[in-house]
């Protein structure tokens, strides 16, 4: 479309572009990555009882939780997550249940 046509239909090419809207309708704005999670063994004793555990990853707005170590011994849970290009994501891990996680300095 030429400038004359733009003027005819009332477009103003001098107007600033509008910012993009997210979540984007364009799938190419995202990248798919695969997250693998899994657990083995048991966490620290509490009241003379060892407990199975799971691990939870928080990656941006994605919250992923593995299966309990007793039921899925050592098997990873693979899941695809879609992340937006041009973004840096913090990753944090949590143990479930959280109360029995001890420090390296502590001995049982």
């Amino acid at each position, binding site marked *: 479309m030429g400038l004359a046509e733009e003027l005819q239909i009332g477009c103003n090419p001098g107007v600033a572009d509008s910012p993009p809207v997210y979540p984007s309708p364009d799938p190419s704005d995202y990248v798919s990555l*695969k997250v693998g999670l*899994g657990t083995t063994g048991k966490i620290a004793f509490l009241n003379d009882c060892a407990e199975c555990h799971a691990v939870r990853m928080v990656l941006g707005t994605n919250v992923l939780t593995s299966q309990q170590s007793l039921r899925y011994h050592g098997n990873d849970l693979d899941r695809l997550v879609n992340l*937006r290009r*041009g*973004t840096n994501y913090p*990753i944090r891990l949590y143990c479930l249940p959280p109360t029995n996680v001890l420090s390296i300095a502590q001995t049982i």
Partner: protein
Amino acid sequence: MYTAKYNARVFAASGNGDYPFLSDSNHLLGSNRPVVLEWLSNSATLYLPDMAIASDVDRDGSVSFTNRIDRTSTNAPFVFWVNDDSDLGNDDTAHDRDPAQYQADSASDNIGNLRDSEDFARLQFRVDQLPSRFQIMTNPNYRTIVYLTNVLERRRCGCSGR
């Protein structure tokens, strides 16, 4: 005695290798990591650099990466002129020659004249910067590949032939 361990890894969906752009100096991620407070209290950072190509698709005089129309993508490729005509001249006397008898402008690495320059469009490339430790220029996992194809049907403008 700790027996609890975890696996936590991030892979590129298209391959089997670990995703390369992770800042994880405390080794939070990996296989067979012990479940202890010192490790779980750390965090890692995943970098997802943006690589984009844009052109002035909406004809507003500027190339904008924030404008979805200007950005090219798999679903919205930028269609450009293959420049297979033969232009001559730099002013009002400029004209198009018969490309069947003269060499196509695309055969030359130079812009031959002002009329030929009208067949060009501005493209902008943007690659987000990553932390220096990733050594972008020497990391074989990080490459920018630009594909230019002419798979679309060649169409000629009947009015001006530019």
